[in-house]
């Protein structure tokens, strides 16, 4: 049980490359913190710095009230689950879990109790004597989890633990990890690039980009009020539609009253659109030509292009090509390809950002 506090943490590689440019995060006791961002954003580096596998160039990392900058990984009282599990291939499942405890000089009887308890929780009891290569991907993943929990550490660190599993297993393991963490109530930091994992697991979500924190907060709060266009397009699938508010149809609809006039970029989530001929007061309506349809059963995604496609929004991952708009509608009923439709979103569902996409503007 411990808080993890990062104060202005920096990482500069010998070549001069700045991987982490000053990060402040505070993870409360027992909380589940998820670091999410595109590859190369520094999230794994940050996690490895917490683990002690990377040196810290600046700032402080505090685990349970102790600054651990100079402390060896084994002394930090953390346990880590690696993306490729990093199980010792020549040791049985039992020994994989027991190894860290033996190195700490724990009595063999106590080790046995702990490993067997972990094996029971993770349903690994029948395969304790097997070698990792005799296990399936999901079972190996569980052994890696078991190795972490037998240690009863202050903090769990997860480095994309589910990305080597197939889609179905990933969802099952996601739920399992969450339940396990709730039950053990151990502070956890979890790195992923999958925004769905991030949304479902996190108590605190940290969205990172280019070595910096874009936004920290409750996942739903971030979803509802993304602070930057990067967050807006990264969190949520399909991504938020972003369009510039140059003097055109959209600008006119927004009106020139209040702070909306300052906005340079307008964002609307696909699910906030309704196909309708009316324009809600203060809302925005767009005329689209349907170009593609994706039916996934419970919902349908309509890809349409706007007649005037002048928008030039700063490049962000998941960004749509200029002029393309995604509309998400429930059910399988959809307009035909080539049809002209009109979609509208109400005022409360509009997200306004400054022209550089770095600032959210509350209308």
């Amino acid at each position, binding site marked *: 049980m411990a808080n993890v506090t990062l104060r202005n943490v920096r990482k500069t590689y010998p070549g001069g490359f700045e991987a982490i440019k000053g990060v402040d995060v505070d993870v409360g006791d027992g909380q589940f913190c998820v670091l999410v961002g595109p590859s190369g954003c520094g999230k794994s580096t940050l996690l490895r710095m917490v683990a*002690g596998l990377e040196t810290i160039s600046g700032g402080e990392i505090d685990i349970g009230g102790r600054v651990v900058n100079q402390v060896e990984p*084994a002394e930090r009282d953390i346990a880590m689950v*690696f993306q490729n*599990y*990093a199980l010792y291939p*020549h040791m049985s499942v039992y020994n994989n879990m027991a*190894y860290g405890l033996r190195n700490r000089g724990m009595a063999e009887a106590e080790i046995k109790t702990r490993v067997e308890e972990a094996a029971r929780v993770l349903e690994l009891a029948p395969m304790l004597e097997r070698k990792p*290569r005799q296990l399936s991907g999901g079972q190996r993943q569980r052994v890696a989890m078991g*190795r972490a929990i037998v240690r009863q550490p202050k903090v769990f660190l997860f480095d994309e633990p589910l990305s080597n599993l197939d889609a179905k297993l990933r969802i099952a393991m996601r739920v399992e990890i969450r339940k396990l963490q709730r039950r053990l109530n151990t502070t956890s930091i979890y790195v992923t690039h999958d925004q769905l994992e991030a949304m479902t697991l996190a108590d605190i979500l940290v969205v990172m980009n280019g070595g910096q924190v874009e936004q920290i907060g409750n996942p739903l709060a971030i979803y509802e009020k993304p602070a930057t266009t990067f967050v807006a397009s990264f969190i949520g699938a399909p991504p938020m539609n972003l369009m510039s508010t140059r003097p055109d149809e959209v600008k006119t609809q927004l009106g020139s009253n209040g702070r909306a006039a300052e906005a340079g970029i307008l964002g609307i989530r696909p699910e906030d659109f309704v196909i309708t001929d009316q324009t809600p007061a203060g809302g925005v309506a767009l005329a689209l030509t349907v170009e593609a349809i994706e039916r996934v059963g419970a919902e349908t995604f309509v890809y349409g292009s706007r007649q005037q496609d002048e928008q030039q929004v700063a490049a962000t991952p998941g960004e749509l090509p200029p002029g393309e708009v995604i509309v998400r509608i429930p059910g399988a009923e959809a307009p035909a390809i080539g049809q002209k439709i009109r979609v509208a979103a109400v005022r409360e569902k509009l997200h306004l950002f400054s022209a550089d996409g770095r600032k959210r503007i509350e209308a």
Partner: protein
Amino acid sequence: MVEQEGIRRYVAHIILWIGIAIVAFPVYIAIVASTQDNALIANGQMSLLPGGHFLEVYYQTIVVGTSGTTREPVGNMMLNSLIMAMLIAVGKIAISIISAYAIVYFRFPFRMAIFWIVFITLMLPVEVRIYPTYKIVADLHMLDSFAGLSLPLIASATATLLFRQFFMTVPDELLEASRIDGAGPLRFFWDTLLPLSRTNMAALFVILFILGWNQYLWPLLITTRDDMQTIQVGIRKMMTTNDALTEWPIVMATAVLAMLPPVFVVVAMQKLFVRGLVETEK
């Protein structure tokens, strides 16, 4: 189609059998010659079928030695060769796995320079540096000793390189997991790296043992006492006789005996060797 396949396989088998015959025939001759009477061989009337002197020839070879001279019995030579080959193989593996561990896993000044120096020695086999090596061994009073026989052959770039390449394929996460599990550098080496290198070590042992066993030039140079002679040198010395007939059955028996330990090592290690090739998972 099926028939053609059958013919092809037939032809392939015939070619393989011819190859085996070419390789095996000299070995067969050696075995046959080692069971015959010396006079027959010297007259050029050697039969291609085994003769009746198997037991007496091998007894004389192993226990007594050639009759005309004061040469050692081959049993003793084999023991010398065995000790030398074992020292070389085990010593090389021990030295090179440790040096490869240092080069791959530790940051120290001039690490790459040291690696390259080790690497360059690949170009300097014993034959090339034989005079200085001899001088050093002689100055250290290691002539006619097992230390002198094996030490100069132990420092090995090849094995270091091989272990380095293998260590580089071991995922970094294993080291990191070990660090988190509280294993220091020695623990990691002993608990994780050594067990993972088992098959590599076995393969290397097979190669190095045979290499050591087959050494000729170096033992020839530094052993002068008959009781320190290795089998490879011994065979050669048996063949050159001044005033008597070469005792061909004994020479052939020695050659056959010289073949046995490498064969035994290959057969014994084969399982581990093959398993190492099949189980690619790290």
